[in-house]
């Protein structure tokens, strides 16, 4: 075969592939459009049927096991599930029993391929949150696909299946930051049930300083149980890793209350500017005016962020606004700007302007409004 003949053969092949692709594109578009419209119709019909059943149980005769694999049905079921608050779950259980959906989707999740179908199965089980799926979801907390692990944890958290907490915690160290983040969200969904296992984990691992431990500490902040405040405050004295310190400070800002002030005051003297800046923000969260002198010092901190966070925190504290007004006369331009910004963000600027427009003549109002209208100067 000559080079020319080979080239001709290649060309013919090329055109055949092009023609096939061309037909493929148009047919695929047509088929997809048709399927999508049919699915939307089925979804609407299922929604109607399920709503009717919830309102007047007993109208699900038309449902069979065939629906267990129908995406439109599953989506409708999930939509209905999201609107229920536990009152009508018996009716939903009847639907699940009749269609054998849990068994069907569990079998799909246990199969090895394809990925799309397995993800559909695990998301369905997680969203529906039926306790019978707990076993299969527990089995998949160590699945090879990260998203399956994430959704399994989420499903278990939605059904408040507490035995999963320890398993999730055990797996935590070995996971990527992304999965850790999603696991952390699931742990927060467990609410107070997760507080003590998490605290125990943090106590044991707090010197490790990896991403996982900071994530765990922040989950405690999301759950918002103030009982963990003393434990976290105690850890703040011993922990060395800066990231862990920052996570502890942030969480203490949320759950620590006045008991956290003592360790936080110590942190405000830290040599690391990030720790000082976060501490200033935490003071603002706690809202105790006794820290005003500390924050006032923070306004002249060498770090840009500490000054800014101190000003923002002062705006949140009773009596803090007076300090900010005084800071408008600071010799440091950046401190003045940070104070002015905090006053503006707190609504003081608008209030001051309104008062002046109403005929007021408070020198503080005039100072703030006048200051804000000076041209901005860059601060090195």
């Amino acid at each position, binding site marked *: 075969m000559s080079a020319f003949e080979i080239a001709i053969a290649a060309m013919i092949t090329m055109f055949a592939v092009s023609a096939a692709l061309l037909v493929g594109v148009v047919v695929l578009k047509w088929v997809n459009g048709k399927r999508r419209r049919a699915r939307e119709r089925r979804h609407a019909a299922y929604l109607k049927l399920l709503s009717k059943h919830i309102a007047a149980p007993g109208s699900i005769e038309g449902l069979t096991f065939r629906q267990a694999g129908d995406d439109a049905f599953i989506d409708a079921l999930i939509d209905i599930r999201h609107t229920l608050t536990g009152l009508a779950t018996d009716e939903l259980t009847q639907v699940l029993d009749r269609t054998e959906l849990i068994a069907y989707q569990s079998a799909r999740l246990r199969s090895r391929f394809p990925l799309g179908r397995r993800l559909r199965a695990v998301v369905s089980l997680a969203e529906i949150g039926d306790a019978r799926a707990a076993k299969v979801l527990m089995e998949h907390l160590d699945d090879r696909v990260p998203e399956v692990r994430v959704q399994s944890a989420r499903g278990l958290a939605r059904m408040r299946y507490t035995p999963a907490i320890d398993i999730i915690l055990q797996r935590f160290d070995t996971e990527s930051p992304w999965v850790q983040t999603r696991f952390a969200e699931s742990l927060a969904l467990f609410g107070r049930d997760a507080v003590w296992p998490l605290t125990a984990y943090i106590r044991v691992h707090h010197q490790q300083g990896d991403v996982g431990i900071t994530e765990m500490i922040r989950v405690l902040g999301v759950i918002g149980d103030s009982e963990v405040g003393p434990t976290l405050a105690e850890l703040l004295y011993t922990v060395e890793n800066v990231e862990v310190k920052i996570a502890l400070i942030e969480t203490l800002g949320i759950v620590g209350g006045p008991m956290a002030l003592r360790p936080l005051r110590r942190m405000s003297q830290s040599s690391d500017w990030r720790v000082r800046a976060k501490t200033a923000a935490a003071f603002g969260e706690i809202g105790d005016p006794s820290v005003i002198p500390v924050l006032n010092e923070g306004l002249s901190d060498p770090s840009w962020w500490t000054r800014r966070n101190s000003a923002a925190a002062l705006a949140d504290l009773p009596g803090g606004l007076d300090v900010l007004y005084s800071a408008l006369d600071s010799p440091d331009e950046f401190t*003045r700007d940070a104070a002015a910004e905090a006053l503006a963000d707190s609504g003081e600027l608008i209030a001051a302007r309104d008062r002046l427009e109403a005929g007021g003549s408070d020198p503080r109002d005039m100072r703030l409004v006048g200051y804000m209208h000076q041209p901005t100067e860059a601060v090195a």
Partner: protein
Amino acid sequence: MILEILEWVGYGILAYFIVLQSYMFFLATRSAAVLRRSHHLNRFGRVGEMLSSHRVPPVSIIIPAYNEEQGIVDAIRSMAIVNYPRLEIVITNDGSTDQTLRRLIEAFDLERVRIPYRPDIQTAHVRAIYRTHSPIKITVVDKENAGRADALNAGINAARYPYALCTDADVILDAECLVKGMRHVVEDRERTITVGGNIRPLNGCTLELGHLVEARVPKKMIPRMQVLEYLRTFITSRPAWSALNALPLVSGAFGIWKRSAVIAVGGFTSGHFGEDMDLTMKMHRYHLEKEIPYRMVYEPGAVIWTEVPDTARVLKRQRIRWHRGLMTVVKDFKGLTFNPRYGKLGMITWPGMVLFEYFAPIIEFAGWFIIPLSIYFGVLNIPLMVVFIALAYGVGVINSLTAILVDESFGYYETPADVFRIVVMALIENFGFRQLTVVWRIRALFGGKKTKTWGNMERRGVANLSAKASQARSS
């Protein structure tokens, strides 16, 4: 001897195009695999749940604006309702000579304020800063005119948050684009320094209240051709480059940048025609030379819609500007080409960019003269040449069709008629349009040194597109 050289050059040019299309085909197949996985994750991954996570870092949306009075207000409104928990919008008015600043002040009740402004990156003089006190924080930096790059740098200086989405004033953001993009940052916050997004032409689409309600392929030929070009670029090239961690370009219309990393390399280069590519390459070089682990990612699910030129005149100006930008970047980063020190970037994607983007118009243009000359002198086998051209054309069509096929997974264009229109473009783009773009890019080689860096798009504005769509419906 001369005829022999002519013969070899002729065959060389033809072979070049087969290699080029094969390279594109390699990227397309690699991209298809990446997109398939990304599609599953976006469909079932419940990424939206991340919105409630405390791990999601806040983002500043930076919008440089120069004479954007027509659409700026609607564009900002559409950005303000993006699904994201912590967000601020920083608009840099780059010395507009129209009513851009006034429109912003009136629409968002802005007031002139003094806020801490750190010039981490040197910029032209900042005249004033304005801020609103609505729940969505909007800051306007009013500065002297110095071009898009300088405006972006001023926006980065004024930004309060650690990540900056640099975009344009004439775009519509998909509601989920930020959360999908920032997923990669949450995934690996230490290493992720940039996330690029998927840009699609807005022309022909239907908008309501700054939201895209129906994606359509434009009726006009010029923007329709660009739909195909954008599909090829964003669907069949960037996912593959991203998988290699060697993206040579994060587009200026949608790029999430780690603020500290941008500052470390000195920000966007002022006065540059291709400031987005320049910054992308600077970031690569900085991290590779300092051996700092990093990741630059492209997220196909993070979609934004932008107006593309709808006349040949405006398109010509845009392409000349782009090619000049590319020329400058190629010159500035010539040391990276086939340099193993720069890994996959130096050995695969950057040489690909130089060979198949920078040199392509020169080689194609040369081919227009050399091939007829070779035929005239009888040194080229005409049947073989026809086969070569047909092969190059065939592979090109396959690439385009693959892009259209893969794009089907996104399902933006709902009617078969829309897809048919793009398919027709795939078949005819080599007959006229391609040659036109070659001429424009050749023209870019002889442009002189203009300093203007704002493209004159003659935008109809996002608001005008909405109004036009409403009128069309009511009639």
